[in-house]
């Protein structure tokens, strides 16, 4: 083993020398480890195996998208090398893979690594090493903390901003509501609940009549629904993941409980939640979104949606088009390409964070019309706009304005 690594060492020394001489001749070009005249190395960590393996499709879609970018000439002439490793959603494994990417594969950054616990495990390391941990794939609120962690940035609207929006809507349209909340007993559920209570402010204690939690390992949540109905609440905030959301909607209809139903956007997919629960049962449910739902017929002739379909036809034909993760990955990969283009020939890690923190009103094909990506040196939450929507017939009816709700970490 030592001999091999000595050789590797000599090789990388030669490479470094090469890089040094080439950068001397072209003064305006700047590179950090992982970027050269012809290549940009991007690292990524996904749960391809283990309990969260359903999200592995995000990594596959991103890989397909970068293949498309490379086929079309790359970014400013440089090809993207996308190295994606499996961590099985286990934090110790994430640390090992992150170190492998940074120290052994020598990537320029780690992009869109998935999950709150895995990203928490590597956050300190990435910031110590000053390697960008860009656009992490989690909705936790803590990623928006540029002061403490200037090398870490989120992407999607965080859970707290979303539930704040529902709280404000309830305060305005139903100020005397009796609210029942069902939430998943983990960081995701608690983050939502906290944002909701913060949004209701001083009235939270009097308005929320019951908070009921369930464990992911439970086979069904029917008994929780029955319990919540017995409180006589007239508003129901449903903080559940897709499988449970479908169960809740169905059970509500079965026992004839008809509160004003708020469903978190995690489970707003028509294909994986509403359809299995039954369209009739889901009428008038309120939710919010920032992405276009590919299973929603209203986007059939939308320009962004057509481009998305063409991309999948050519580069990832086996993708499940009802899976919201595919749309998510497509959009975040476009976000990264935007940042890399903006970097020009200065591909230093510092400049990447600088460009990522100065996105102005960027519109992407997969985002709802009017939702824009915005960041600044003090705002590391790229997407913080959502639009409320109500389920009518077989699709979501967007209503009201695009709402901005920035919550810091």
């Amino acid at each position, binding site marked *: *083993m030592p001999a091999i690594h000595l050789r590797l060492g000599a090789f990388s020394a030669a490479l470094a020398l090469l890089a040094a001489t080439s950068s001397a001749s072209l003064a305006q070009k700047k590179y950090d480890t992982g970027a050269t005249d012809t290549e940009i190395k991007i690292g990524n960590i996904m749960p391809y195996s283990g309990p969260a393996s359903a999200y592995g499709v995000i990594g596959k879609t991103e890989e397909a998208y970068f293949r498309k970018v490379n086929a079309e000439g790359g970014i400013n002439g440089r090809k993207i090398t996308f190295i994606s490793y499996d961590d099985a959603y*286990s*934090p110790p494994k994430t*640390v090992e893979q992150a*170190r492998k990417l940074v120290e052994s594969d020598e990537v320029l950054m780690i992009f869109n690594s998935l999950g*709150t*616990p895995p990203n928490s*495990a590597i*956050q*300190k390391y990435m910031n110590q090493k000053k390697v960008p941990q860009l656009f992490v794939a989690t909705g936790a609120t803590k990623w928006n903390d540029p002061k403490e962690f200037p090398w870490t940035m989120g992407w999607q609207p965080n859970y707290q901003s979303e539930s704040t929006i529902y709280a404000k809507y309830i305060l305005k349209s139903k100020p005397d509501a009796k609210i029942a909340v069902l939430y998943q007993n983990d960081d995701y559920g608690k983050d939502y609940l906290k944002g909701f209570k913060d949004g209701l402010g001083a009235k939270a204690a009097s308005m929320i009549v019951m908070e009921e939690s369930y464990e992911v390992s439970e086979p069904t949540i029917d008994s929780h629904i029955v319990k919540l109905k017995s409180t006589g609440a007239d508003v129901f905030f449903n903080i559940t993941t897709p499988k449970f959301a479908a169960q809740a909607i169905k059970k509500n209809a079965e026992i004839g409980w008809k509160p004003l139903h708020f469903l978190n956007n995690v489970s707003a997919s028509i294909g994986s939640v509403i359809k299995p629960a039954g369209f009739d049962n889901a009428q008038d449910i309120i939710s919010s979104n920032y992405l276009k739902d590919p299973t929603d017929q209203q986007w059939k002739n939308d320009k962004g949606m057509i481009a998305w379909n063409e991309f999948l036809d050519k580069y990832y034909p086996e993708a499940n088009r009802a899976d919201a993760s595919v749309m998510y990955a497509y959009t975040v990969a476009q976000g990264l390409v935007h940042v890399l283009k903006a970097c020009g020939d200065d591909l230093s890690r510092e400049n990447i964070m600088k460009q990522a923190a100065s996105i102005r009103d960027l519109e992407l094909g997969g985002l709802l019309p009017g939702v824009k990506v915005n960041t600044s040196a003090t705002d590391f939450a790229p997407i913080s706009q959502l639009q409320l929507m109500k389920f009518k017939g077989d699709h979501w009816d967007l209503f009201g304005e695009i709402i901005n709700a920035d919550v810091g970490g």
Partner: protein
Amino acid sequence: MSAVEDVVTEAPAVEAVPKRAMTLGFGTSLVMLALLLLVPLFVKNFIIFQLTMLLIYGLAVLALNILTGGSGQFSLGQSAFYAVGAYTSAILMEHADMNYALTLPIAGIICFAFGFLFGQPALRLSGVYLALATFALATAMPQLLKLGFFEHWTGGVQGLVVTKPDAPFGLPMSQDMWLYYFTLAITVGIYVASVNLLRSRSGRAFMAIRDNEIAASAMGVDVALYKTLAFGVSAGITGVAGGLGAIAVQFVAPDGYTITLAISLFLGMVVGGVGWLPGSIVGSAFIIFVPNIAEGISKGLSGAVFGVLLFLVIFLVPHGARQVAMVAQQLIGKLKK
């Protein structure tokens, strides 16, 4: 056939391993130690980190080996002890500002007590039933760590971030290298102690229980005491490994200590050779590196590739690394002639 006869004629759960075959020869041990001492000087920090993890999981597998290979009791609950050790170290370091080195004996003692207490009810169970009881412990642990009651200390689902120690006395080495040598020292210490334990009176009592409980008790071995003691020692060593793991990974969270970890450790023990202590390192290498190799072969089917590789190992060398080592020894013996 009467019930008593039934018990007596039942094949022992774990094949009897002669005492001498449980360790390596003195010369081989020295060569191994020299290798472990020298390799980090020539490799990158990332590899050093992997080697540190290798030693840490090796310790945990060793602990299980003492329990199963030594006293013949099964456990699928090692991840629970590992988690308790990791959290003990992390909480003491982050909330009580204690020195990392001091947290390890405390983690060991707490886990020893925990394992000893768990060993009491486990006395009534044996074989697969004991495995199931420990399995329950492993599934319960991540949930317990998430409890709101402990959240102030454990950080709940968000976990705790641990600060990595610098090399002391201004030694000119990186954090990773220091931690590696620190871990190596502890591992060697525990390995030597374990070998001596198994050679001692208590070790003979463990093995007597493993080979035949009734015969052991007839010879005056306090079966209940030694069974729980084996659980305690195993849990204690696992706790130290957990504490070291927390320091090396710099993070603890319930998701790191699921049943998957317990099964990995069990797997490491089988691959290394049940009852063969040096095999623990080989087993640990298997559970760390083979998933990476499997992923290199096929990303989408990494689990299946891992399964095939595991199957091959079990099929070709059912006694794991011990068998390979024995064959090698015979070959060398022939060459010498």
